[in-house]
């Protein structure tokens, strides 16, 4: 029998592409019900009625895929609540029809390029997360230019950076340069480094500030805790 914990674990692989954080951490999963026969229903909620429908679509579709792939799931249903485009998104995902079909002439293309742009932002932000402690520990920017990923001590931030780079097809093994262009994958030269690090920091500040506002809005809307996350016990309550 499929356990609810397995479903939640699968949902933890689904990210808000804009915030680069799991929907489970963000408090976007409002309920998750698993029947004995393997029928799963997941409900998602977002910080506002007008959250960008393209990102909303990606999250609902990704959640559907993640849940469907869990062993023993007979039927998966993912429902977005309280959103202006919920009907179009829910119907589109349920019919597995893709974004363009769901939105007709309002969408001229699928969302792959959009997603790629935001994974690049995640790479930049992740670069700041692993570089900031090195700089704080006294490493110079010139030294950073000579480092490879394998030179860094293991950390969750490093794992995450590697995984985002791999997702984009950028070099992510131990021998790859720590600092690479998020589009071409080429190593950043010493001269371009200060600006690259500035951009990385700015991208991270934006991502985290944005996430903090989303958390506040979700809290106002649904009474979640200050970070917008709901715990498993609260999830049980919602259920």
């Amino acid at each position: 029998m499929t356990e609810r914990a397995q479903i939640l674990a699968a949902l933890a692989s689904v990210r808000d592409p804009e915030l680069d954080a799991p929907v489970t951490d963000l408090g976007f999963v409002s309920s998750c019900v698993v029947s004995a026969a393997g029928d799963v229903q997941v409900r998602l909620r977002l910080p506002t009625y007008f959250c960008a429908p393209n990102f909303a679509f990606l999250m609902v579709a990704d959640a559907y895929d993640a849940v469907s792939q869990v062993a023993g799931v007979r039927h998966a249903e993912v429902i977005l609540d309280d959103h202006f485009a919920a009907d179009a998104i829910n119907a589109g995902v349920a019919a597995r029809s893709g974004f363009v079909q769901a939105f007709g002439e309002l969408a001229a293309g699928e969302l792959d390029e959009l997603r790629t742009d935001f994974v690049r932002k995640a790479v930049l932000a992740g670069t700041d997360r692993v570089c900031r402690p090195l700089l704080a520990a006294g490493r110079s920017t010139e030294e950073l230019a000579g480092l490879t990923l394998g030179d860094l001590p293991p950390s969750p931030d490093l794992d995450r950076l590697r995984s985002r780079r791999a997702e984009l097809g950028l070099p992510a093994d131990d021998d790859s340069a720590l600092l690479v262009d998020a589009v071409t994958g080429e190593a950043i030269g010493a001269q371009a480094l200060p600006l690259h690090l500035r951009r990385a920091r700015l991208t991270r500040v934006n991502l985290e500030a944005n996430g903090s506002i989303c958390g506040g809005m979700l809290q106002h809307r649904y009474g979640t805790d200050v970070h917008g996350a709901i715990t498993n016990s609260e999830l049980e309550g919602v259920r």
Partner: protein
Amino acid sequence: MYEKDGNKYFIVDSHMHYWDASPQNWVPGAEQYAKGWIECFHAYQSLGPPETHWTLEHFYKASEEDLMKDVFEDGYVDKAIFQPTYLTEWYASGFNTAEQNGALAAKHPDKFIVNGRWDPRDGDAGIKQLEEDVARYGHKGVKMYTAEWREGSRGWTLKDPEAYRFLEKSQELGIKNIHVHKGPTIWPLDKDAFDVSDVDHAATDFPELNFIVEHVGLPRIEDFCFMATQEPNVYAGLSVVIGGLMYARPKFFAKVMGELLFWVGEDKMTFGSDYSIWEPKWQIEGFVDWDYPSDEFSDYPRVTVDTKKKILGLNAAKLYGIEVPEEFQIADASAPAAQDDAVLVDDGVRV
């Protein structure tokens, strides 16, 4: 004006509203959008200090008395700039129009500047309307809401040829300041709808206009900063930044301010309370008291009394040709209140 520790601040609230979102103004059939919109705004208010929160009912529509008290009597504001948001697909008489704003401004001379709007989808009729509006209200600025829904269209961009026609007309009519809302928008759905590249194009092609990006492109501050740093006539409108982050997320507020000061600079940042999402009083008091909370921020540009004087009023005063008494000016006359190449309103503001 606001005075603290012997320093006097001239306050220009460069982004505020006088809206009517009450249920009787909701367009039949579009109630869910009208309701969703104002509830979304109300959620933003929750990011301010609890004692400043309003009930949703109050929030639907501030009265004239509320506004005059909150903004001028309690709120220290010397000059307030009305930015209109029509949203007539959802609100029968408009959400916040130049007509509503102009009527209030006429009752309180010298308090307000009434900004206008245009929409390239209006074509020739819109050009004619703009001419009439400028004659009537003396607009020196307009607020663009590129995401506004209309008759099946869900928005437009400043790059559209029709938009260029309106930018040319604006310039011809003496409008200097183009405020662009870069916040929630829903078209085109398959692209990044918060993209600020249309501002980049227009700012390059219209160097004699100033482009004030309201809400600094949130949630794409990085894209806005990369763009603004290359365009001398692009400004950062701080509405939402102070209101949404300073109280609720002080650490992120410090980082965002540090980044904006680095990339955009203190001469190109303007305060806007976003009333009645938030009242100006706590924002001004808090910002005057504000500094980076720790050494962690030591490589961001420093914040001085002059920085705050510029952001809270002097920069916007310069963009709009608002006369500022000597006592509020910054001591060092060599320090410009706005970037040298800023394009200034050259005659007085008529209302």
